[in-house]
C-alpha cells in the first residue's frame, strides 16, 4: 500500500511540476517521462507484492489506507485486494508503455496545443484510474470514475481542430455519463441496503435475489456502456480513432476494461445473482463478440477496426464472466473459477496486445498520414519493426498458439466445456452456444487480422498515384521507422505477449488470485494444478512444433544453398500489366464473409459499374452500418431532440400565458390536495 501511495504522490507532484513548467516543452516532457517510469515502477511493485502473497487468508486484502469521513456518505478509503492488484498490474504496464510512446509521439509535435497540459492530464488519468481500481468506498469510486471520464474526454479531444474529433468526444462523454447514472443508482441501492457506502460492509450484506437482479441490470448498463457491450458501444468506434494513438491504446486497454472491473467488483459484492443474469450476460457477450468482429471486418480504417476488435474481445471476456456467473448460480464452483480466471486473464492479455496493436497502428498512421487501409500496403519492408510487432499483436489477438491470447481463450473454452460437463440441460445449451460463438469469433478475428496485416504490410502499396513515385511504390524518404521511444514500449508489450504465451503459469496463477477475490472462496490447489498443468503440456506441444520448424528450416537452408534461387515479379497468371491497384483490398478481402452475414449486418456496396464493353472506370465502395447506432441511438436522440423542440411553445413569450400557468397550477394543486 505504501508503495502505491508513493507512486500516487509522485504522480501528483510531477503533474503539478509539469503544469508549472508547461511553457518549456523539454522540461515538462522530461519530468513526465521520469515520473511516469518511477510511478509505474512503484505501482507494479505494489500490485505484484499483493498478487504474490502466499498467505491465503480470505478475503485477500492488502493493507488499507483510510481517511475518515470528510464528506457525507463518502470517505477516502482505499485498499488493494487481489482483484485490484490484477487490474493494477495490467494498468501500470500499459500506462507505462503508452506514456513512453506518447512522449516519443508528441516530442516532435509542432501544433499549437500545449503538450505539457496533455502530459499533466495523462498523469491525472493515471491517478484517477488507480483510485477507481483501489477504491473501497462507493462514493470515492464514483468520484474517481467521473473524473476519469472527463479527463479522458480531454485527452481524446487533443486534436480538437477537426469536427469529427469533437463529435466523437461529445459522444463519448454523454454516453459514459449517462451510464454513470445507472451506477449511481446501483451503488446507492447497495449502500442503502448495507447501511454504508464502504465495499466491506456491502460485501458482508446479503442481497435478496430480486434486488440482486435489479443491481445486475443497472451494473450491466452502467458498466456495459463503458465496456462497450454491443447495443451500448456506439461511442467506442468513434472515440478510438479520434484520440491520439497512445490515448487510444490506454482507452482500449484500460478505460474500457474498467467496465469489466466494475462488473467483477459488483459480483464480488453481491455474489449471488439469479441464473438468468448470467445467461443474459452470456448472450450479450456472444452478441458483442460476434458483432464486434463482424463490424471490424467491414471497416477500412485501421483504428476503427481495432476499436471494433475491442468490442469483440470484451465479448470474449464477458463470455468468461457469464459462464462464471452461471456456474456460480448452479453452485458449480469449478466452472465459476475457471470462467472468472479466463475473463481476468483475457482482460490482461487484451490490454497488452491491443495496446501493442494500437501503438503500432499509430506508428503506421504517423508515417503514412492516413488511416485508410486501402491506401496502404507493402509497409513491411519500409517499417520492419512496426510490421513485426503488429504481426505479433495480430497473432496474439487471434488467440493463436505461442502467444498469450491463446492461453486466455483456452481458459474460457475450458470453462465453457466444463460447463457442458457440469451443468444441466439448460446450462449445456447456453455453454455450447457460447462455445460456438467463441469459435466463430476466433475464426472471424483470424480472418480480420489476416486482412489487416496483409493489406497494410504485405503486397505492394495501394495508395493513389499522387502519393508515390513512378514505380508504384512509396518513396522511401516518406516513411521512416520511429525511434526507440516509439519502438521500446511496443517491444515491451510484444515481449509480454510472447512471455504470456510460452510461460503462462504465472499469469494464470495471478488470475486465480483475482478470482478468489471475486468469489471470496478459496480455490482448491487441485483445481489450480488441473488448469495450469495442461497449459504446460500445451507449451510442450508448441516446443515440439518449434523443433519440427527448426528441422524444416535447416533442411530448407541446406537445399537453398544447393539449388538456385531466383527473384522475379509476382506471377500474374498470364495477365499482362498487373498493377498494384489490382491487389485485393481490405474491402474485397472481407466481402465474402460479409455477404454471408448480410442478414445480420447492414452491409452496403455502393458503386457504379459501367455497362459498356470496355468500361473506362468503375468504382465500388462497401460499408457496414452500425445497426445499434443508426437504428437505435440516432432515432432515439432524434426523438429526444424533437420532443424538446415540440414543447418549446411553453415559453411563448406572453406574460398572460405565464400567469395562466400559475393560476392553472394553483387550481390543479387545490383540486389534487383538497378534494
Amino acid at each position, binding site marked *: 500500500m505504501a508503495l502505491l501511495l508513493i507512486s500516487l504522490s509522485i504522480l501528483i507532484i510531477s503533474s503539478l511540476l509539469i503544469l508549472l513548467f508547461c511553457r518549456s516543452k523539454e522540461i515538462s516532457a522530461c519530468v513526465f517521462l521520469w515520473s511516469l517510469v518511477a510511478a509505474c515502477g512503484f505501482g507494479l511493485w505494489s500490485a505484484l507484492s499483493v498478487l504474490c502473497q502466499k498467505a491465503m487468508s480470505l478475503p485477500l486484502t492488502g493493507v488499507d489506507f483510510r481517511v475518515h469521513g470528510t464528506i457525507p456518505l463518502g470517505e477516502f478509503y482505499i485498499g488493494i485486494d487481489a482483484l485490484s492488484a490484477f487490474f493494477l498490474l495490467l494498468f501500470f504496464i500499459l500506462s507505462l508503455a503508452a506514456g513512453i510512446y506518447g512522449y516519443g509521439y508528441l516530442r516532435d509535435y509542432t501544433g499549437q496545443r500545449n503538450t505539457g497540459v496533455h502530459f499533466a492530464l495523462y498523469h491525472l488519468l493515471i491517478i484517477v484510474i488507480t483510485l477507481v481500481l483501489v477504491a473501497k468506498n462507493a462514493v470515492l469510486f464514483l468520484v474517481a470514475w467521473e473524473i476519469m471520464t472527463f479527463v479522458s474526454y480531454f485527452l481524446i479531444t487533443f486534436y480538437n481542430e477537426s469536427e469529427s474529433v469533437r463529435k466523437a468526444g461529445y459522444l463519448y462523454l454523454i454516453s459514459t455519463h449517462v451510464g454513470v447514472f445507472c451506477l449511481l443508482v446501483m451503488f446507492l441501492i447497495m449502500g442503502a441496503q448495507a447501511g454504508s457506502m464502504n465495499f466491506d460492509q456491502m460485501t458482508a450484506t446479503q442481497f435478496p435475489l430480486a434486488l440482486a437482479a435489479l443491481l445486475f441490470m443497472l451494473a450491466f448498463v452502467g458498466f456495459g456502456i463503458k465496456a462497450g457491450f454491443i447495443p451500448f458501444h456506439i461511442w467506442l468506434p468513434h472515440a478510438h480513432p479520434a484520440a491520439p494513438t497512445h490515448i487510444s491504446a490506454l482507452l482500449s486497454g484500460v478505460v474500457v476494461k474498467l467496465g469489466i472491473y466494475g462488473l467483477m467488483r459488483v459480483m464480488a459484492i453481491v455474489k449471488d445473482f439469479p441464473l438468468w443474469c448470467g445467461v443474459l450476460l452470456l448472450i450479450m457477450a456472444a452478441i458483442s463478440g460476434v458483432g464486434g468482429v463482424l463490424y471490424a471486418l467491414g471497416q477500412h480504417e485501421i483504428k476503427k477496426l481495432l476499436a471494433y476488435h475491442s468490442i469483440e474481445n470484451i465479448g470474449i471476456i464477458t463470455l468468461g464472466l457469464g459462464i462464471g456467473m452461471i456456474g456460480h448460480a448452479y453452485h458449480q464452483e469449478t466452472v465459476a473459477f475457471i470462467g472468472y480466471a479466463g475473463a481476468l486473464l483475457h482482460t490482461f492479455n487484451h490490454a497488452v496486445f491491443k495496446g501493442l496493436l494500437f501503438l503500432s497502428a499509430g506508428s503506421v498512421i504517423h508515417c503514412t498520414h492516413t488511416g485508410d487501409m486501402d491506401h496502404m500496403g507493402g509497409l513491411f519492408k519500409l517499417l520492419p519493426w512496426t510490421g513485426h510487432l503488429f504481426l505479433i499483436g495480430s497473432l496474439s489477438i487471434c488467440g493463436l498458439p505461442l502467444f498469450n491470447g491463446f492461453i486466455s481463450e483456452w481458459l474460457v473454452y475450458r470453462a465453457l466445456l466444463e460447463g457442458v460437463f457440469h451443468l444441466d440441460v439448460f446450462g449445456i445449451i447456453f455453454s455450447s452456444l457460447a462455445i460456438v460463438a467463441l469459435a466463430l469469433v476466433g475464426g472471424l478475428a483470424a480472418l480480420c487480422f489476416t486482412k489487416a496485416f496483409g493489406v497494410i504490410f504485405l503486397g505492394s502499396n495501394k495508395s493513389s498515384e499522387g502519393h508515390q513515385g513512378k514505380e508504384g511504390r512509396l518513396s522511401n524518404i516518406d516513411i521512416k521507422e520511429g525511434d526507440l521511444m516509439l519502438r521500446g514500449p511496443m517491444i515491451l508489450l510484444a515481449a509480454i505477449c510472447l512471455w504470456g504465451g510460452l510461460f503462462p503459469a504465472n499469469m494464470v496463477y495471478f488470475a486465480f488470485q483475482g478470482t478468489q477475490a471475486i468469489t471470496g472462496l478459496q480455490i482448491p490447489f487441485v483445481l489450480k494444478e488441473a488448469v495450469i498443468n495442461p497449459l504446460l503440456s500445451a507449451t510442450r506441444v508448441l516446443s515440439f512444433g518449434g523443433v519440427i520448424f527448426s528441422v524444416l528450416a535447416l533442411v530448407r537452408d541446406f537445399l537453398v544453398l544447393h539449388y538456385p534461387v531466383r527473384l522475379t515479379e509476382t506471377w500474374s497468371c498470364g495477365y499482362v500489366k498487373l498493377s498494384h491497384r489490382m491487389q485485393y483490398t481490405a474491402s474485397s478481402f472481407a466481402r465474402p464473409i460479409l455477404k454471408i452475414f448480410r442478414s445480420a449486418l447492414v452491409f452496403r456496396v455502393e458503386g457504379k459499374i459501367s455497362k459498356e464493353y470496355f468500361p473506362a472506370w468503375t468504382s465500388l465502395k462497401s460499408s457496414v452500418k452500425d445497426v445499434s447506432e443508426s437504428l437505435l441511438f440516432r432515432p432515439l436522440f432524434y426523438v429526444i431532440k424533437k420532443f424538446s423542440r415540440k414543447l418549446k411553445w411553453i*415559453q411563448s413569450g406572453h406574460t*398572460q400565458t405565464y*400567469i395562466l400557468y400559475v393560476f392553472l397550477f394553483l387550481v390543479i394543486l387545490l383540486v389534487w390536495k383538497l378534494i
Partner: protein
Amino acid sequence: MNVWLDAILILVVILGLFIVASTRLGTMIKIFSWQSLLLGCVPFLMYAQNMEFYIIIVSLVAIVLRGLIMPYFLFWAIRHVSIRTEIRPFIGLGATLLLSGLSIVSSFLLASKLVFPISISSDMLIPSSFSLIIMGFLLLVGRTKAISQVVGYLVLENGIFLFAILLLRKMPLLVEMGILLDLFIAAVVMGIVVNHISAEFNNTDTTALATLKD
C-alpha cells in the same frame, strides 16, 4: 349593520364585474378607485362595535393609497399613451364576463367548503374576496394592455385586502402597514415600468412584449 355590509360587498363584486366588462382604460381606473373606496369602508362597518385606533389608521391608509393616490398615479402613467381602449383582448369581453360569473359561483362553493374557525360578521366576505381575486387573474390573463394588467393586479390585491380585513385584529400594525406599503410601491413600480414601456415601444400593448421566448 350586516345588511349594509352585505350591500357593500355585493357592490364591490359588481364593480369588479364592471371593471372586467369595460374596455376603456380610464373607466377601468375610475371604477377601481370607487371599488377601493368602498373596500376602505368595510372595516368601519365590520368592527363598528369595538373600533380600535389602528383599525381606523389601516382603513384610512388603504382608502387614501388605493382609492386616491393609485388612480391618480395610473392616470399619470397613461397620459402619454395614445390608445386608451383595450382593442383586442386575449379573452373576449363576453367570455370574460361569463368566466367572472362562474368565478363568483365557484368562490361561493369553495367558501362553503371551508369553515372559518371563528364566527365572522358576514358570510359574504370570503366569497367576494375570492371572486375579486379570480377576476384579477382574469384581467391579468385576458388583457393585452399593460395598464389593464396593472389594474387586474390591483383588483387581485383588493380581493386579498378584503380577506385581510378579517384578520385585522390579529396582525400587528407594523406588518399590516408594511404589507400595504409594499403593495403600494409594487403598483408604483409597475406604473413606472409601464411608462418605460410606453416610452420605448410607443404603446403599452404587451403583445409586443413577447420577443423573449424559446
